[in-house]
Structure formats: structure tokens, C-alpha cells
């Protein structure tokens, strides 16, 4: 007990100058409009972002303009064209919901503002110890250049009215598809979710999964992916449309599942199935399943471009996203249902109670049902997988 109070006093002492800096950021942010560039294909996420905007406007006088992207890379392109035109300040993108390869690309090109994460007061609720999930994005060190906001886990969705026993490992998909030809597919690997499907299989099938955590080399790529391609060659003929065409992304595939055109879909959000049922977008009988050995999981981040016109406001938004009350609302299945990135051990009793009181739904898996979380391979694997897949199967 005494130790804790000593620590908290120490923490106060340490955070005082930072708190003063934070006050400066708050002052600078007042009245700013943050252009948050985020994928706009999910109505619940859009509504949540709108709600966050109302909150920050009320609390900090920072409003949010949600720039809806169909692909995150659009925002990256925009920052690049701005640099091309010499627009090094006053850029049009303030905040980006970003994922591995886009983050890597921007970080390597020095297109990011930061480091800023550790200066955010609410970062205290996040486990930022070395190697913690929020410090790595596809094994690329975050180094304070992007702030976490939601947790993602790869899951499959199926219609329990049509399918009795979904496959319980990636390897078993081959047999399942052979028995049910044309009833399974995956999004185009040019899309994030399609690439994740291949990565999920790679993590299970690779001879030495530890190699996947390092950047891929020509030799290691050939060696580790050989079983994957053998598996895929066996699977592909029995895919929807004979593996000649693929849905553009997982939303389109979810629509195929709803139409009864396929029996299985996939998502990077364990709560999306329950939410889709709630919204009338999937039948009541839709359920989630995962392979027994677990699935890939990662953290979604927000980053600020180097030339953002409203960087102070963007930091205020990033900080507010980590507020325990906001995170609890985000995890609420009736709102968004995305798992929180906060470390339960760092929360106080009231915040923990808010999380415990969240409602549940039949199609919402528990953390135990989701099994172990597997680490994302290094970002270079995803790029290579996508390219190699295109080389092999695009004619």
C-alpha cells in the first residue's frame, strides 16, 4: 500500500513538467478542427468517431472532421503529394488510422510527427513496456510515433444454420472446401484482410514461425512459405468461383455470407459478428470461430503526419481515445465492440467496473474462446506475400 502511494507521489513529481507541456498542447489545440483520415466502410466505427468528436468538442473545444477513406493508403498518398508540392506545414491530414505497412512506409520516409505517445496523459493506462503489444506494429517498433486505440483479433464468421462443424485449423480448410466446393473464399490479398488470411495460414504452416518476426529475406521467404503455397494450391480450386475471383474486402465477403453465397467470412474484430446481427446485416444464426492454435492479433493505431496543420488537436484526440471511459464505450457491443487497448492492471476500480458491466451477446466470443493471440509477422512478410500471391495467381 505504502509502496503504491510512494509510487504515485513519485509519478506526480515526474509528470508535473509533462503536465505543464500537456496544458500547452491543450491551449494550442483549442478551436482546432482535426481532419481524421480513417477507413469509412464501417457504419459503427463512423458513428463512434462522430461521438468522439462531440466529446472532444465539448471537453477541449477540438472538433473532428472524419475524412472517410476507402483505403488508408489514400491518406499516405495525400501526404506524399503535399511534400511533392513543398507543403511542409499546414498539411490537410491531421490524424490517420493506420496499419502496419502504411506505418512502415511513412516512418521510413520520415512523414510522421513525433514521438508523442508518452507525452499523452492517458498513455499511463497503456502497457508501454518494451515488447508490449502497443509498442510494436507488425513487429516494427512504434517508438512513440503512433498511438494505440483499439485491439484487433483475426476471427472467422460462419452461419451455424448452414455449417455444423467449421474447420478447427487452417490446414483443415482444404478438406472442408473439398467437401463444400465454392462455399469458402477470402478477400483479395491486395486488401488488408485478404493478406491477413494468408498470414494467418503462414503463421500456422511455416516450419519455423520465429523467423517470421524478422524481416523476410529471399531465402527465408522461399523456405517459410513453401508449405503455404502447397496448402493454397490444394485449397484454391474449391474456393468460390474456382479461386478465379475474390471479394474486394471483408465487408463484401460479409455481404456474400449474408446472401448465402458463401458459408464463411472473416474479420479483424471479434465483435463485428454480434454487431452485424444487431444491425440486420447477418442472420441471427451467425457465429464466430477461430482455429484451435489461436489467431493473429494486433493493435490499431493513430498517427500524425509531419506536416499536420492541427497537430496539437490531433494529440488531444489521440489522448482522448485512450480515456478509460471512451475505451469502455468502445468495447460496448452495442456501440462498437472493439476490445480495449488499456492494461486492466493499470485501471482504477471504477474504470474496471465499467468494463465488467458491459453487455454481452450470443455471437460475441469471450476472450477465452478466442484462444491465444499470435504475433503479426514483420511487415515485410505481408508485402512479399501479397506480391508473390499476385505473381502466382494473377493471370
Amino acid at each position, binding site marked *: 500500500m505504502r509502496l503504491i502511494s510512494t509510487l504515485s507521489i513519485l509519478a506526480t513529481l515526474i509528470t508535473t513538467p509533462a503536465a505543464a507541456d500537456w496544458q500547452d498542447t491543450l491551449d494550442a489545440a483549442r478551436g482546432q478542427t482535426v481532419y481524421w483520415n480513417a477507413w469509412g*466502410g464501417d457504419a459503427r466505427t*463512423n458513428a463512434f468517431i462522430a461521438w468522439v468528436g462531440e466529446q472532444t468538442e465539448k471537453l477541449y473545444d477540438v472538433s473532428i472532421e472524419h475524412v*472517410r477513406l476507402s483505403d488508408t493508403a*489514400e491518406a499516405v498518398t495525400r501526404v506524399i*503529394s503535399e511534400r*511533392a508540392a513543398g507543403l511542409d506545414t499546414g498539411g*490537410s491530414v491531421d490524424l490517420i488510422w493506420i496499419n502496419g505497412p502504411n506505418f512502415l*512506409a511513412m516512418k521510413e520516409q520520415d512523414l510522421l510527427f513525433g514521438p508523442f505517445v508518452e507525452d499523452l496523459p492517458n498513455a499511463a493506462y497503456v502497457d508501454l513496456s518494451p515488447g508490449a503489444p502497443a509498442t510494436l506494429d507488425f513487429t516494427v517498433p512504434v517508438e512513440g510515433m503512433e498511438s494505440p486505440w483499439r485491439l484487433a483479433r483475426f476471427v472467422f464468421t460462419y452461419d451455424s444454420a448452414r455449417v455444423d462443424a467449421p474447420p478447427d485449423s487452417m490446414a483443415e480448410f482444404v478438406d472442408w472446401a473439398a467437401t463444400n466446393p465454392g462455399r469458402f473464399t477470402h478477400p483479395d490479398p491486395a486488401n488488408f484482410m485478404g493478406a491477413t488470411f494468408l498470414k494467418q495460414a503462414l503463421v500456422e504452416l511455416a516450419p519455423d514461425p520465429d523467423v517470421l518476426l524478422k524481416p523476410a529475406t529471399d531465402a527465408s521467404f522461399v523456405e517459410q512459405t513453401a508449405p503455404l503455397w502447397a496448402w493454397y494450391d490444394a485449397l484454391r480450386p474449391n474456393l468460390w468461383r474456382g479461386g478465379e475471383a475474390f471479394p474486394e474486402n471483408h465487408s463484401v465477403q460479409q455481404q456474400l455470407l*449474408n446472401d448465402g453465397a458463401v458459408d464463411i467470412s472473416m474479420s479483424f474484430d471479434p465483435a463485428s459478428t454480434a454487431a452485424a446481427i444487431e444491425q440486420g446485416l447477418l442472420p441471427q444464426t451467425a457465429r464466430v470461430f477461430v482455429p484451435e492454435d489461436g489467431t493473429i492479433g494486433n493493435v490499431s493505431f493513430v498517427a500524425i503526419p509531419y506536416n499536420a496543420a492541427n497537430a496539437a488537436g490531433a494529440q488531444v484526440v489521440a489522448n482522448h481515445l485512450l480515456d478509460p471511459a471512451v475505451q469502455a464505450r468502445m468495447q460496448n457491443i452495442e456501440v462498437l465492440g472493439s476490445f480495449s487497448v488499456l492494461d486492466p492492471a493499470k485501471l482504477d476500480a471504477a474504470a474496471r467496473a465499467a468494463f465488467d458491466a458491459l453487455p454481452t451477446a450470443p455471437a460475441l466470443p469471450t476472450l477465452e474462446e478466442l484462444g491465444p493471440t499470435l504475433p503479426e509477422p514483420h511487415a515485410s512478410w505481408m508485402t512479399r506475400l501479397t506480391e508473390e500471391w499476385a505473381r502466382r495467381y494473377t493471370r
Partner: protein
Amino acid sequence: MLVTVAFGLVLPIAAGLWQTGRAGVGVLPAIGATELSLVPLRDLIALPGFSTALRLTLVTGLGATALSILLAVGVCAAMHGRMSARASGRLLTPFLAAPHAAMAIGLAFLLSPSGWIARALAPLAGWDRPPMLATVNDPGGVALILGLTVKEVPFLLLVILSALSQIPVREHLAAGRSLGYGRGLVWIKVIMPQVWPLIRLPVMVVLAYSLSVVDMALILGPSNPPTLAVLLLRLFTAPDIGLMLPASAGALVQALLVAAAFAVLSLLERAGRVLGRWWVRRGGRGLSAEPGLWMATVLSALLFAAGALAMLSLLIWSFAWRWPWPGFLPDSWSLRAWSTPGSGWAAALGNTLILAVATTALSLALAIAWLEGEDRARRGRAGWAEALIYLPLLVPQIGFLFGLNVLFLRLGLTGGYTAVIWAQALFVFPYVMIALSDPWRALDPRLVRAAGSLGAGPWRRLFTVKLPVLLTPILTAAAIGVAVSVAQYLPTLFMGAGRIATLTTEAVTLSSSSDRRVTGVYATLQAGLPIAAYGAAFLIPALLHRNRRSLQAGGAA
């Protein structure tokens, strides 16, 4: 006047092409590329599926254009004189007004294996699951050809009908038939050769559009690989920044492709002239063209029906709650998609309206100024000026929009309404100009002369005689302007820096989501806005001129 247009139209296109061209040969200093080389082109060609994408582009672009011309000519030959110009105009309007993206979204649902047609057939065929057929996004691009044809046939019909009004069709037909030629053959041998020079430019617009269309190809076309234009959009927006160089090289290839298609068209025209003369002189009097005409009419009627059903399905989806396979109608209905305007459609509708009004007003003002300028200088339009007006419609959008974006960024214009209005006006102005030119020239010169002899100066003649008399065609041109502005996808996306969400950009984004109900709302609004504009163009003159019979619709034109 000419200077304004040259500055406003030609400069952005030339500058955009220049920037894209530089990047296409490896010069894009912003990403550290400064060396002139052919590597971008080589990288582009080495992309998996590049040759397939190229072939797809040619097949869909040329196929859709050829099919559209055949059908439009067939329908005109079969129906001309059997249907009044006003009735056919009213029939065509909704198809002209509905933006490509909305039409594509509707067709995607109508035609897909789990779509409306399949649902109607399911009880008969005993399908408990959607059939395993590739009816949309098919690797051959048939669905894309169909979608383009649904939109282009009405456009070509309109331009052919307008061209026919300048030709004594009835007399030619009577003369031809009295010499023993069938109706179809008179059309092919006598009337079409006169129509062709009048519709050559619009056909080129259709050709350029079909070869480089993005929004429709995204929704209806194949995806692995897609057509060239979609492939380029993917490259321009890929996380790997280096891909911008091959993307720019691809934009050049796209431009060359369109240029080559124009060259082929011109060769065909020349060959047709030689062969046609020989054929006409030979004097064969076969009656065999008649079944072809009727087939074209039936096919077009089917296409129109598909288009109408597609739009209807969007409206139904927007009011649906659960509409699972194989229900022919929704299980449950809901107003939820409409009742939450705050979730986005209100803002998108507002932006779309602002842009449509601004670009249309700007384009209309420029067009009137140009035409009045021609009147005052007592000069007709030179061929090069005509080509200048068409220029933005003939250069593929993706070829210069990326470069134009860089230019606008330099000027500090991007991301605001100004940039989007300018970029949209590049495409709105030509259509407004084309729509207004003929009625303007057809204005009875005695009216103006009479006003002049009564002492009215040039400005008074313009504002109290010409514009009021030309109210109907001006409003029609405005409605076309609104329809073109609403439909713009790439210019809004590139120049708006994604900040200016319109019904079209949102509808295309949503078409890759799982919620057809929300997509239905956007697509319905997107199609409804231009239709409302056409409705206004029809109603306003009817009201204002209710006691001026010869000024009512059709009277002035």
C-alpha cells in the same frame, strides 16, 4: 473569352499531363526520384496481370462503345418518326440523369448470383443457394460492358436524335423507299453517312470514357486483375510510395490507348467511306436489315428495363431492414437508413449541392459569354475551338488528375471547394456548352433584329430577349451540368483531398461495404438529384411561360 477558357481548360490539362508524364519517366523529386528512365514503364509491364488488364480495357472499352453505337443506331432507325421527340426525351432523361456509379451499384445487385433476377428464378429453378455463376465482376468484363452500354445508349440516342433534326429524314426515307430500298437500308446507306460527322465527337467521348472509366469498373468489372484504369488507381493509392512511378507510366499508357483508339476510329471511318461508296453505288436493295433493327430495339428495351429495375432495387434497399436470399422482397422494412442524416448523407448531399450549383453556374456563365461573343463577332465556331471544348472529355481523367493535383497543391488550392469546383467545371463546361450551342444558334434572328431596330443595345437584347426566349434550353443545359457535376468521382476524390465527401464518392466507397441499405440511400439521392434538376428544367419554363404558347417546351429549340 478565349483566353479565359484556354487558361481554365487547357492549362490544367496540359500541366497535369506534364506532371504525370514526368513521373512516368521517373522524375518525381518529392519521393527522391530524379533520374530520367524507362524503369517505371518496365515495372508497370512486369506487374502481374498487366497484359490481361490491358486486354480487358480494350475489350470492355471498345466492346461497350461498338455495342452502344449499334444499338443506338438500330433503335433510331426503327423508332424514328414513330415516337415524338418529346416523348423519347422524357423516356431517356432518367437514364441520362442517373450517375454511372448509382447505375452500377443497382446493376450489381440486379445481376449478381444472389441478386434480384436470381431471386426471381430461385423458386422455379429450385436453388436453395445462389447459383455459382460469375454474373458480375466476371473475368471477361461482360457485366462492365453491359453497365456501360446501359448508360451510353441513351446518351448516343440523344445525340443522334439531335443530329437527325438537322437532316430531312422523312424526305430521304420516302425517296429511298420509292426506289425500292428497305427502311433499314435507307438508314445505313443514306442517313447514317450524314449523321456520322455530327456525332463523331460524342462517339469519341463515349470511347474515351469507356476505355478509362473508374467508378463503374470498380463496381461491375473484374478485380483480379481489374481494368487498366482501376489498376492505376490502386497503384496511385498503394502504401508503397515508389509505385507512383509505374502508376504514372500507366497513366501515359492509358492516354496512348485512347489516342490509338481514336486513330483506329478514324481509319475505320476512312475505310467505311471507300467501301460504303462502292456499296451504295452497287445499289443492292436487300430488305435484310429489318430484323437487325428490331433486334437492336428489343435488346435496348431489355437494357432500359435492366436500368430501371436497377434503380428501383436501390430505392427498395434503402427502405429494407432484413432482405436475405432468396426473398424477392425484404423480410422487414425500416426507415433507419434514411432517418439518420447526421451519419453522413446530409453532409454529402449538402456538398454535392454546393458543387453542382457552383460548377453549373460557372459553366453556364462561361458558355453564355462564349456564345454571345460569337454572336457579337458575327463568327461561327472554328473546328479547333470545337475540339478545345471537347478536350477535357477526350483525355482520360486518370492521365492528368494526379499531375493536376500536384499543380493545385503548389498553388495552395487543394482540399478546398475552389479546387474541386475548378476540376469539376473542366467536365461540366463542355457538356453545358454542347447542350446550349445548337438551340442558341437556332434562335430566330428576327427577334433580336426587331429588338435592335426598336433601339435595344446588345446587353438589353441579351437579357430581355435572348435569355428569356432561351430559358428552356438554358435550364436543360443547367440540368445536364448538375447531372455531370453530381456524377464526378475521380476529380472530387483527387482535388478534394478526400475532405469533400459527395454522394458519389461516398456511394463508391460504400459499394465496397456490407450495407446495401445505406448504399441504397446514397445511390438513390445521387440519382434523384439530377432527375430533380431535369424536372425543374421541365417545370419552370412551363410555369413561367404558361401564357406564351410558342415559348413552351420544344417551341424555342
